[in-house]
């Protein structure tokens, strides 16, 4: 074994490159140990610990580069030097600003370095980029909405031919191999796989499973039009097939806002064929909730269904009046409507209604020229304040969605307005869709909302039932 230590005076490289160079040397044939680093005190100590002679670097200072190699013989040392030369010099050339690659303008330009494309350009342009991505062998998530349905069909047929998946258009949420795309909560990888044409529906499933201690490795969004007659569930069926074939997926959930009946049947038939136990949750069908789907999933996994986190309102009393639902998540809103209609009868979906209303502020008509309400809360804040002042309103129900992509601290903006509404006598119920792994910190958000006067529920269905029951109470009383 030969120790070879060289000091290059006044030679500087950044620490990341030196780390890469060290790694390249360590992997070289015949090399036992190697360190390439600036001669700081820390690095000199490290070198001594590795058993190299401290004398060799006695005169070196922080502006000097040390190259220490322990190898089986002289040729191995010489070989290591060649590798080092390449690791340091070639990179240096590539990093020169003159040679910096100009910014790319189309997906195809960098496709060879990627595995997946996330496209959120205006809908009329999404098709060209998505086709570009598919042709270059990438899976695709199209976040953009307003993509013509014929283009969606063509994208998904092309993906089928190429053995790829198109999630979307109008796909807000996905998790692939534990990585959240679009709006996604931070969850541990685990045995549940999800396929869904329901963005916040997927998020709710993930959050409830997370609260029950169960992880999700893959949640494939399909886009809100996938279960339409025209698209025929192409992505849902493909995702279902892939997750069914995946041995690490123990239970499958298929979730969707109300699908076209014949497509719903086709998916139901495919789910029945799956080897993996599969839970279907078509929101809008009698008695179907996301909470219920998670319950069945936990049963299939042999896990107990927990009492999902909730933070009761500090005070009980509130003025009589109608229900105002102010939602940012479409699937969460749909679920709430389903539950409210059962208990309250008619529930309006448009703002003008004088009776009970549940509005989805993520719908196109409210997002023209502004960001989604999960990012930009201003419109909802204003409607929340108005509902607080409106003496006809007894109970206000709203969702707050956390996770990647969402507002960094929604409670900070909502709390003062909630406090005002509560002071006016309205009851405020919050469905908080989040996990403690989320960047916004679910429990802290809950505390702030709760202290402002809101009853906070992790389960959207529980929040909706609670809100409805309070309206009921008043009606009965």
């Amino acid at each position, binding site marked *: 074994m030969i120790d070879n230590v060289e000091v290059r005076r006044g030679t500087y490289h950044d620490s990341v490159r030196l780390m890469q160079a060290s790694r390249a040397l360590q992997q070289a044939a015949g090399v036992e140990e190697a360190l390439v680093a600036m001669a700081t005190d820390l690095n000199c100590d490290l070198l001594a610990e590795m058993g190299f002679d401290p004398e060799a670097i006695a005169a070196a200072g922080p502006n000097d580069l040390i190259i220490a190699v322990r190898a089986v013989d002289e040729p191995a040392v010489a070989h290591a030097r060649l590798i080092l030369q390449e690791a340091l010099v070639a990179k240096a050339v590539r990093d020169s600003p003159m040679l910096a*690659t100009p910014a790319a303008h189309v997906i195809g330009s960098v496709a060879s*370095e990627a595995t997946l494309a996330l496209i959120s350009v205006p809908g009329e342009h999404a098709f060209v980029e998505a086709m570009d991505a598919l042709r270059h062998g990438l899976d695709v998530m199209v976040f953009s909405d307003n993509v013509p349905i014929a283009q969606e069909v063509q994208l998904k047929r092309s993906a089928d031919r190429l053995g790829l998946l198109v999630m979307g258009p109008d796909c807000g949420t996905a998790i692939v191999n534990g990585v959240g795309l679009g709006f996604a909560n931070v969850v541990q990888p685990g045995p549940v796989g999800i396929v869904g044409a329901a963005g916040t529906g997927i998020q709710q499933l993930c959050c409830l499973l997370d609260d029950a201690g169960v992880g999700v490795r893959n949640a494939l969004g399909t886009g809100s039009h996938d279960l339409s007659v025209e698209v025929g569930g192409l992505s849902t069926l493909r995702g279902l097939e892939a997750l069914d074939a995946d041995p690490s997926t123990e239970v499958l959930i298929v979730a969707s806002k109300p699908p076209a009946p014949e497509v719903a049947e086709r998916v139901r038939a495919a789910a029945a064929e799956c080897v993996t136990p599969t839970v279907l949750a078509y929101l809008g069908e009698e008695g179907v909730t996301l909470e219920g789907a998670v319950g069945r999933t936990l049963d299939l996994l042999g896990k107990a269904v927990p009492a999902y986190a909730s933070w009761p309102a500090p005070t009980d009393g509130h003025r009589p009046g109608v229900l105002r639902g102010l939602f940012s998540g479409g699937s969460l809103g749909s679920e709430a409507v389903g539950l409210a209609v059962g208990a309250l009868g008619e529930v309006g979906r448009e703002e003008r209604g004088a009776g009970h209303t549940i509005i989805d502020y993520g719908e196109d008509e409210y997002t023209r020229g502004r960001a989604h309400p999960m990012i930009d809360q201003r419109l909802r804040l204003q409607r929340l304040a108005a509902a607080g002042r409106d003496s006809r309103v007894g109970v206000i129900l709203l969702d707050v969605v956390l996770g990647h992509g969402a507002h960094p601290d929604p409670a900070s903006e909502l709390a003062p307005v909630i406090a005002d509404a509560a002071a006016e006598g309205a009851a405020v119920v919050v469905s908080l869709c989040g996990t403690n792994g989320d960047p916004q910190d679910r429990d802290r958000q809950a505390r702030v909302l709760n202290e402002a006067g809101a009853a906070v529920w992790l389960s959207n269905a529980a929040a909706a039932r609670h809100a409805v029951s309070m309206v009921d109470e008043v009606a009965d009383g």
Partner: protein
Amino acid sequence: MGELERLLHAEPVVVTAGIEVLAAALGAQSVAVHRIDWRPPFGGTEVALAGLAASPKVAEANEIAIARLLEVRPHLVDVLPAGEVVPGLAGRTFLHAGPPLSWEQASGPMRGALIGAMLYERLAATPEEAASKLAAGGVELSPCHHHRAAGPMAGVISPSMPVLVVENPATGGVAYSTLNEGLGKVLRYGAYAPEVIDRLRWMERVLGPVIGDALRRSGPLDLRSLIAQALQMGDDGHNRNRAGTSLLLRAIGAALVESDVATVADRSAVYSFVDSNDHFMLNVVMAAGKLIVDAASGIEYSSLVTTMARNGTEFGIRVSGTGGRWFTAPAPVVDGLYLGSFTADDANPDIGDSAITETIGLGGFAMAASPAIVGFVGGTAAGAVQRTLAMYEITMAEHPSYQIPILEFRGTPTGIDATLVARTGVLPQINTGIAGKEAGVGMVGAGLVEAPMECFADAVKSLARRLSDDAAA
């Protein structure tokens, strides 16, 4: 491998186009992200681009077209009188650079060159007589590009001029270009003074036959190899051809000495003429380029650009999949360095077939190989590298032989895709000379010019129409 194995189980590397917050969310998860600086396509091309993206035929056609473009091996074999070899040049036909043009539309240098050709061919005794005959339609004008030929600047080719003969031994394809006259007062810049005509006559009588004989003695000269070497010696193949010219002269040197078709004095004069004209190789590269683009032309549905050429009035392009149709826009004015006391006011709009070099991955596309070019066309060495790097985004391939040392011998960006130009807004970069706008003035400078977007947008729309018409038929 299971279905969607990579998606479900591999660490994703994500390319994002659109909303920044979504890219940032990936960054927060320590996922490798490539952000695209996406921008809307050129206005009016959206529907056409979607139609072309929808069809697998376009991608398939482009694969064929670029393969044809890359496989051509041009060889310089001879120099012969144009009237004997260039198709369709019999009778009173003159060829010119760029898209089709009438005398009325012709700019100063183009008119000057046509007048000069009339004097040279003895079809007129005076410039005035030449002009009136040309105005009366006494000579038919036709683009070089329609006759397997390409000519720099005005690009005028008349029957008596000697032309370089470039062949592709594998296919028997052939293409032609004139011999370069040097700088100063020359026909291609619209000069027609007696010294210009005298030089043309000497070229016909001495230069052409001597070079032709030398080539026949030395055997076919592999231009692909010669151009590749020249790039590594600092040429761009368009405005810097010092290395290529030197290599050419070296290759035929012994044959020049051996030649018996002229006196020693004449052969010495030939050597000196070529040696003193750094641009001699330009016309050779252009003939090679014509051979290359013709091989890639006529592939139905392909969006490969096969012609970029200017006639001093209009800039025109042709695309492989749209037949012989020209898509034109007013020729832009070149941004560059001016000789002596000339200024932009003296400049004619862009002119010449020499943008064929950019069409085959040289010139502005190979500027990174030629930092010395900036002394001639302006700019900085770093800017030259950046211009080449920008061209990779609008081209289909990296040339297997034309390599750029400073880019770690990466091949030059080759084969412009008109759809990528429309999508990215990145325009082909052309290195070029600047002609004076008055006939007879000659060269006033050199610089850089971008091909006009309208040409590419129109080509994309036309290609999409062809595709949808054929699908409907």
